């Protein structure tokens, strides 16, 4: 098993290097650069001076070499969008995204598993049919569109929740403790709900299918024959077995959640990794774009690794 883990880690490292290299060259292939913003105050000569100052006038391969050396020394560069070292910008943004995706993943799994199990237990009932239809709707929604609809509904048509940002930008820092906590919680609701609902739909569908596969199994029939209650069979015997593929799924959901977070953060102005990545791309903030790709790909390979390890731990057949 140790050899498998080392092999997976090496594969993951190669994936991160390849993805980083591609993003490094792709963002530089786009027109503009960090200093090409639309400002009549800046002459081309001044722009050229700034480009030279930061080495953007050097051949691409030389820039890449410098970047690799810099990253190897733990320096991710400077962000012109965030006006601070890239590592400092990530240190602020990453926890915000992890909070958002962590909460969304937790809610999505708890809700998805409960709904999926309940659907399987009442297969063919009106609850199963209606909830399947609703889940299918959420499952089919593009992330950004779903987030926009939720924003419109709860922030504009029925304005009961704030439209965006992590806290009230003006008054939060001057609120009392309970007020500030309430303010923070209110700002979490819509982005977490958007991300959780969209993920929950697919988890529930997986859970329902897994449960339907397990419920006719011999050991379930044996349990029934022994007089074990239906509730205990469902929640103890069947659900525990059906959780195995879902645990694996949790790791695989991380890339999807990160992708979804990009749209959700943009829609709700949530200043996490997704939003700073989108802004960095628009502003051609080369170092920040590349760093967010590095962090994103690291999270994805860690998620995949976690999925593999969980699979190995839960299913002895996969250890060979």
């Amino acid at each position, binding site marked *: 098993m140790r050899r498998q883990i080392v092999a997976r880690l090496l594969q993951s490292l190669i994936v991160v290097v390849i993805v980083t290299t591609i993003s490094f060259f792709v963002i530089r292939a786009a*027109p503009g650069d960090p200093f090409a913003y*639309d400002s009549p105050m800046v002459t081309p000569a001044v722009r050229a001076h700034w480009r030279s100052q930061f080495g953007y006038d050097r051949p691409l391969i030389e820039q890449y070499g410098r970047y690799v050396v810099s990253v190897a020394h733990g320096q991710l560069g400077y962000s012109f969008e965030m006006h601070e070292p890239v590592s400092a910008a990530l240190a602020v943004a990453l926890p915000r995204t992890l909070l958002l995706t962590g909460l969304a993943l937790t809610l999505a799994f708890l809700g998805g598993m409960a709904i999926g199990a309940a659907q399987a237990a009442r297969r063919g009932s009106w609850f199963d049919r209606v909830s399947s239809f609703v889940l299918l709707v959420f499952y089919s929604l593009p992330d950004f569109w779903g987030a926009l609809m939720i924003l419109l509904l709860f922030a504009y048509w029925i304005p009961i929740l704030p439209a965006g940002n992590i806290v009230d930008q*003006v008054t939060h820092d001057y609120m009392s403790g309970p007020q500030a906590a309430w303010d923070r919680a209110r700002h979490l609701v819509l982005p977490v709900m958007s991300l959780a609902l969209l993920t929950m739909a697919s988890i529930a569908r997986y859970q329902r299918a897994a449960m339907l596969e397990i419920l006719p199994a011999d050991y379930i029939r044996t349990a029934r024959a022994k007089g074990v209650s239906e509730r205990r069979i469902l929640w103890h015997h069947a659900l525990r077995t059906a959780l195995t593929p879902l645990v694996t799924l949790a790791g695989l959901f991380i890339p999807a959640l990160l992708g979804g977070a990009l749209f959700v953060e943009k829609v709700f102005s949530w200043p996490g990794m997704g939003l700073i990545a989108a802004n960095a791309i628009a502003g051609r903030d080369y170092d920040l774009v590349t760093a967010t790709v590095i962090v994103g790909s690291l999270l994805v390979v860690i998620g995949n690794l976690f999925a593999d390890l969980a699979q190995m731990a839960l299913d002895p057949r996969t250890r060979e």
Partner: protein
Amino acid sequence: MRASPLLLIVLATTLSACEGSRTAASTGATGGTLVVAAIGEASDLLPPLVADINGAAIQSMVFDRLADIGQNLGTVGDAGFTPRLASSWTWAADSLSIAFHIDPKARWHDGQPVTASDVRFSVRAYLDPKVGSPTAPNLGNIDSVGVRDSLTAVVYFKKHTPEEFYDIAYQLFVMPEHVYGKVPFDQLRTSDVSRKLVGSGPFRFVRWDPKVRIELVADTANYHGRPKLDRVILTPIADANAGAALMLSGQADFMLSFPIDQVAKLDSSRVARAVAAPSFSYGFFGFNRFAPKSNSAPHPIFNDLRVRRALAMAINRTAMAGNVFGKFAQVSHGPFPMTLGVADSTLRMPPYDTAAAKAMLDSSGWKAGADGIRAKNGKPLRFSLMYPSTSLPRKQYAVLLQEALRRVGAQVDLDQVDAQTFQARALDSHDYDALLNAFNADPSVTGSKQSWGTSAIGPGGQNSLRYSNVKVDALLDTAAGSFDPAKAKASAAKAYQQIIDDVPAVFLYDLPLVDAVNRRLTLGPLRADGWFANIADWSIPPDKRIDRDRIGLGPAKP
């Protein structure tokens, strides 16, 4: 007992929020929090590096100039200027130097006195090539700065010009040497101190959370008296529509350039109102003199003056301005905004005459084909029109121009690009046929040289159309060198008329700025060179204050 992750997160969130406490409320004539919805983000805040309107706003509130320009924005001599950091000044007999006497009451926000050596340091910072200040070209006539005593800075000029006082007094914001002098100039942009401003202006810097807010608080001990507002917060917004939503919901108090197609909502709003503001911006439909990406091959269509003139005559500028800007429309009078001191509304513009336009195209060899599109030597009269997706007026103008030019047999392909691409293609690679651009003029006539002078072609200037006419260069030089405002205006008018006659562009509109203002806010006079010019006089009456106005002056939670 095991706590669930959800419970831990909620607990952590709650605890992290339980650190703040409300500060004392402001009452009386002063007080209130101004929230400004600012499109985009400031590129930099430190004066030598400021390159956009948001950075300029913060610079103007936190730092001081040596003298304030008058409301009429006169740039000749020191007429109209009033004391700011310098309580007075003395001209040398040969006018090649000016001694500025620093107000002895002036203090930096950290409590240190402002000295003459701060002025010398600031000029050095602006002019040092390692900083690469966009303002440096405007200070090119400054030879050196001497320190006569701790409160007297003597500025020496290379030559006596009508605008030498304006150059030093208006273009330069004075910075504290004891704060910024510690940083090597080539590291100023990325240094932490450039994010923590220390100035002497009416507002103190509180914090800058990029993409979230820039916050300032009143300097209550300011040597010119405290501003009426307690606090100013600039909130960056992604686009004009997001700003409009903030204004109409009362979450923001001021927005520069409210989307013109939504102004009617302000008229019916009980929260915000529309205020027409003067502007230095003017928009035009420009022709590339050379073939795209080329610096020498003439453009196959626009190299012919008759074609440019014919296209200009096919455009009903008045109707288009009305269509785009409604009741706020201001049709352009030439390559300048009417707010400029040397502006002239009597210049001859190409008349709107589609019959004459068609005849001129016929005579220049562009004959109409069966599909209505003209062609010459087998090549159709077809070109692309580049414009930035970030400008709503220009997006609307692009569609109107496409239709207007189709009527005289020209096929226009719309080429909408993002702001970065627009800038790169317009100024660097010159990869376009025609473009919709807008210039933000300088109060001085020398700004016209930077836009239309031959010397402004290439890396040194903004002449993106690469227009060149030695007669125009000479006339603009004469205007800029004249000490008599009437003569300066006459020379500038001749230069502008020549530019209009050469048709490097069709001058479409003076940008009518419509600002959105919360109804509880009382403004000072608005100036064309920046909405923030008189912000120290803005106020919110006590009876109109809302929750955020009661934040007061206290420090924020760390």
